[in-house]
């Protein structure tokens, strides 16, 4: 019996007797929200006029959107006990393919679809090797990281792509609801959609089950390969959306486009409460994590902190976020055994 609550952690339909655990979850997300608010207040009282300027605010929201969208997929991947460090270089591949498609004057929407298809394809490659090769995800994605980088380089052929249509920038950056760019609206909509999927659809329950106890899930007849293919392909597709947003944000495709992006996304997911040990994590946590990571970065810019320190802070957030998750799991295990 003591194993059951873990299967449902962060998962769907809270059972009444588990109210305490659910409160635990709310506390964590509330805590994140409080940290974001505190950061916002501090920024308001110190550099308020530049923080609340519409340029800074919509820039921040766009950055949050770009990290949040793949963080949804990363959350699901980590829930299955996986990881994907290749998405930064996948951003490069998608950006180049989209850039080349734009150069060939393909219709706008078709280019977006091609970009997403490329992302899904890249994710499927990862998922297939992980699912059928039984190779640890870190090894697979470390390998594909450099493969995707090489593909980007080959496709770029040593030149940068700069004639990205203004329409993309218009859609991604300029079109807004008040100060909120449409990209952010898209990110929130995707978070809502996948929160629903994870909490209410069978695939969501399967993903939690697969991550919580792979042995049991396999014994229960769950097709693990399907889950692997699904989460990595989804992450690939969402990464492609982020890549298209990135190209809209800075309409230039270079060999370094997307570099180190995977680390920000992993940071957002783990800071958002997704447990690296698997089986537990909420999509909305990815949004809050992305918000926290990006607001810290924004603060660093507004305070003119040397960018070197940002890396240290991001590293600390990753280790810190994960240790909190591990400590909570440990405490719950102890409580569980006392029940």
């Amino acid at each position: 019996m003591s194993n059951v609550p873990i299967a449902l952690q962060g998962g769907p339909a809270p059972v009444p007797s588990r109210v305490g655990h659910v409160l635990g979850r709310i506390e964590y997300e509330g805590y994140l929200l409080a940290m974001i608010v505190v950061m916002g207040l501090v920024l308001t009282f110190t550099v308020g006029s530049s923080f609340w300027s519409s340029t800074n605010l919509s820039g921040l929201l766009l950055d949050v959107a770009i990290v949040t969208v793949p963080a949804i997929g990363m959350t699901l991947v980590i829930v299955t006990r996986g990881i994907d460090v290749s998405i930064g270089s996948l951003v490069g591949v998608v950006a180049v393919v989209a850039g080349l498609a734009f150069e060939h004057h393909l219709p706008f929407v078709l280019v977006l679809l091609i970009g997403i298809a490329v992302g899904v394809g890249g994710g499927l490659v990862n998922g297939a090797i992980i699912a059928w090769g039984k190779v640890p995800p870190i090894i697979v994605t470390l390998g594909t990281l450099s493969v995707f980088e090489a593909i980007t380089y080959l496709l770029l052929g040593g030149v940068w792509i700069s004639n990205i249509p203004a329409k993309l920038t218009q859609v991604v950056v300029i079109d807004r609801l008040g100060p909120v760019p449409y990209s952010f609206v898209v990110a929130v909509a995707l978070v809502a959609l996948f929160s629903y999927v994870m909490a209410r659809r069978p695939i969501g329950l399967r993903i939690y089950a697969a991550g919580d106890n792979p042995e049991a899930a396999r014994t229960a007849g769950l097709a693990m390969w399907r889950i692997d293919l699904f989460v990595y392909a989804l992450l690939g597709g969402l990464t492609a959306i982020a890549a298209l947003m990135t190209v809209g944000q800075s309409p230039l495709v270079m060999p370094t486009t997307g570099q180190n992006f995977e680390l920000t996304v992993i940071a957002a997911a783990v800071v958002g409460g997704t447990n690296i040990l698997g089986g537990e994590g909420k999509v909305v946590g990815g949004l809050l994590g992305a918000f926290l990571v990006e607001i810290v970065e924004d603060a660093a810019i507004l305070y003119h902190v040397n960018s070197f320190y940002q890396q240290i802070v991001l590293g600390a957030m990753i280790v810190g976020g994960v240790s909190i998750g591990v400590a909570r799991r440990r405490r719950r295990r102890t409580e569980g055994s006392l029940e």
Partner: protein
Amino acid sequence: MSTTQLPTSEQAPPGGATAGHRGAGALSRLLESRVVVQYGLLPVVLVGVLIAGEILAPGVLSPSNLSSMTRFGVEIGILGFAEMVVIIMGGGGIDLSVASTAAVTQVSLAVLLRGGIELWLGVAISLAIGLALGALNGFFILGLGVPALVATIGTYFGYAGLALVIANGVNIADFPSSYLTIGQGDVVGIPVEFIFIFIPVAIVLGYVTSRTKFGHEIRLTGTNERAALLSGINVRRLRFSGYVIAGMLAAIVGVVESSRFGTAQPVADSTYLLTAVTIAVLGGVDIFGGEGTILGVVLATAVVTIFEYAFSLAQINAVIELGSVGVMLIVVVLGQVGLKSLRSYAARRSSA
């Protein structure tokens, strides 16, 4: 799906003592043979790389090329040792932060030397810094229980930032000329760092990991953690020491690298990690722990070095070369996993 939690019972016994006796089929005997168990696909890849190298860059194995290659291979080889030590102990062990550790140690050394400190003392302090950073990794992983993968992604970032802060973001070039001998001098045509650093490190590690109690314990821990615990091994302390060793080895690489270039670079070499993990795995280190030899890693270092050197002789871009190393990594691990399941299949059939 992560397979790092693979039950150890699925692992074939090293050397195949039990299954090999019962094994009747030739296939089973081949799969259980010492070469296949210890080195996996290495011989095949070695032949493939030699052929590919000769096609890409005819004359790649000329004596003068071999001499420059040994220089280049020292750094990635030692990082391969570092990965071997942490991977072999199992439990999802890996160290993704080695390149950043090397960056921190080389800029620290440069700053110390600029401050007028004695060369030997500066090197000693840099190695101590590597040890400390490795210990910090060990603390996060074994003290706080953060999986190695994520802990060292975090410290990869953190240490990279630290290196930039120490160097103030710029390369530091004022090394005394005596220091440059380590990475630029040679003795009878053989690079100094190969004779006086790589070979001794390989011999010491080879001895420690195969002939000592420590070596026996890390293998047992990697093969069967529970058995290791039951036989009284302090698994946590053992794994902790693995990260400390990895940090030290990364520090050695930082020292050699900065001496070879004559400058200390605060920006970590992002190609190191992939290359180091590929070398370890190609050298027969079981990605799930328990198996691996220094000799295998040394041979794999030679293979990868020849491979990379042929690419650069043929003037193929480094990004493409690294992509090929990535393909090599995936193929080798797939082969390793495939061999293992083939082996247990053959063992099952012959014992049935």
